[in-house]
């Protein structure tokens, strides 16, 4: 099974003709992902190493039956590109790699998707999703992955790689690795991914990588406690990060003391997750489950 992406994924790449878009689309294809189309407005009719390019998402979907999109559109235009993808019939997943989208745009788009189409958005500002041996939709270096039965979910791109690397070097494979991104309003939360892993018969345990700020880890802890039967190993980055010099009072009034690495660790431990100290201990902790 795996979650989000697999052999049935028919991938469309938005801004396929860009530098990052073409590089990673070709890497994803080389891994075995079914890359069926690209979209770059004004470049319809061209192709990138055999992948046909269309002017619009709807035309690409109509011609190729694409059901998943990977968005490399630059930040000023990315939220529009996400809305365009969500409007295409049959679109079942949007993965947005783009970094630096204005928070106001992101808040509008994420809330709009929740209220209307309901198409899941992973990211923005994320490394994407890989189901090892099945499909890679994003920029994760698939060389470090190994097919298996551990799910990985993370807010940080490069720490996801670190965690996967620790698993693979110990011979522990992964069912799916999901980078949800570290932006203020992520399209997909830890809880969304945890509930899919809990329901996925091919996933036996989950590795969760969090970091300071926000309350996503605390929400994950509450979900784990209430709904998860599968074991969770967690790592939190940012114990020694300097406290943000926040100017206004609003942040303190909203969050109180939550948001620190120590508070997140405590919440996860209270939910019976194993919280490790070094990223290098992730593999050991999963092996010991």
């Amino acid at each position: 099974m795996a979650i989000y992406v697999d052999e049935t994924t028919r991938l469309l790449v938005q801004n396929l003709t860009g530098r990052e878009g073409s590089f990673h689309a070709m890497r994803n294809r080389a891994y075995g992902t079914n890359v069926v189309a690209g979209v770059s407005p004004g470049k319809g009719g061209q192709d990138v190493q055999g992948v046909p390019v269309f002017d619009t998402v709807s035309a690409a979907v109509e011609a190729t039956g694409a059901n998943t999109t990977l968005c490399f559109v630059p930040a000023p235009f990315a939220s529009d590109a996400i809305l365009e993808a969500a409007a295409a019939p049959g679109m079942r997943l949007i993965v947005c790699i783009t970094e630096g989208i204005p928070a106001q745009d992101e808040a509008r788009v994420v809330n709009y998707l929740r209220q209307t189409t309901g198409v899941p958005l992973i990211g923005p500002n994320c490394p994407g999703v890989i189901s090892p041996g099945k499909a890679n939709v994003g920029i994760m270096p698939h060389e470090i992955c190994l097919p298996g039965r551990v799910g990985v979910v993370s807010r940080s791109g490069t720490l996801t790689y670190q965690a996967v690397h620790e698993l693979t070097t110990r011979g522990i494979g992964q069912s799916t690795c999901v980078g949800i991104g570290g932006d203020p309003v992520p399209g997909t939360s830890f809880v969304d991914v945890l509930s899919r892993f809990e329901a996925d018969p091919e996933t036996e345990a989950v590795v969760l990588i969090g970091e300071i700020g926000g309350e996503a880890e605390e929400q994950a802890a509450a979900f784990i406690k209430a709904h998860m039967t599968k074991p969770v190993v967690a790592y939190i980055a940012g114990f020694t990060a300097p406290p943000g010099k926040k100017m206004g009072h609003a942040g303190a009034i909203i969050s109180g003391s939550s948001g620190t690495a120590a508070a997140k660790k405590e919440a996860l431990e209270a939910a019976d997750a194993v919280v490790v100290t070094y990223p290098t201990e992730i593999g050991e902790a999963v092996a010991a489950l």
Partner: protein
Amino acid sequence: MDLLEFQGKQLFAHVGVPVPEGRVAAAPGEARAAAEELGGRVVVKAQVRVGGRGKAGGIKAADGPQAAEEAAATILGMDIRGHRVNLVWVERATEIAAEWYVSFTLDRGVGRHLAMVSARGGMDIEAVAASDPAAVVRRHIDPVVGLADWQAADLVYRAGLERTAARPAAATLRRLYRAFVDLDCDLVEVNPLVLTAGGEVIALDAKVTLDSNAFFRHRDFEAFREAFQEDPIERLAREKGLGFIKLDGSVGIIGNGAGLVMSTLDVVSLVGGAAANFLDVGGGAGAETISGALEVLTRDPAVKAVLVNIFGGITRCDLVAQGIVTALGERELPWPIVVRLDGTNAPEGRAILAEAASERVIPAATMLEAAQRAVELAGGR
């Protein structure tokens, strides 16, 4: 990007939220001249990008030009929670009938806008919120719809703001919310928003944080930086597009991705060292970014050894290695560089470093090993 109070007030005035008339002053004599122009009683306020100015003595009332000059002489040069005061704002004093608290921000927990309003604004708002949570009315706003008129009215009435001023108060809330959205702010906070003795609603303070990701559509915002006292190393890092924060230790850190860099700081600390900085080269860093990052660290005399920790994804390790080789060729680097490369094109990157055969470059196989080696080379803590 946090703005100074007077810059926030400029934005407020622009969207039709009344603010007291005032002038910026960089010297006591300028404060005197400002007070003369404004006439009557004034308030002299330290311009620093941190809270707690009032409690630190950075805000003083003055009866006339002489008193304003004296107040400015005391406040200019003060250190307020690590921020040196280089500018004061001299504004006409306001006769206050009531002090309120208003803010608009993003509640990351639910991914929606959050409005907070209280009739008990002023210096102790955090204490009020902690001891009497009901005194701060909180309402989520759907970013798709925006602040509806009924919601603005609801905030005003539920917070118990003075009923006689309900209309101008609600209008002010709507304008502040429009500023929050249209000007791409992460935070708009007014504490206090006051009702004057004459029945006007005026913003006596302004805390505005702008989203620098949105500067492509607000080209003029970049100019706000001119009034900031920026550390030269931090400025260089920003100009090179690097995420940089100065810390107290001796191990210079360069990594890709905020999470991995934070984790690197933690690991350096766990093995007995301390990081000299947080430096994130971001996603897709090329050779030039890496050599630029090394250049930034050469400006910090506290750095004794450097740890480059890269896990390539969109970043390619071969380009990282090329950047290190470029930096070695461009300048005499005063410290050893421990390099850990994994991920996209890592074997190519390691080969480039091996070929360069510099004794300055020490390869490490894992993040833990790299941290241990760098801490050792930096001479511990």
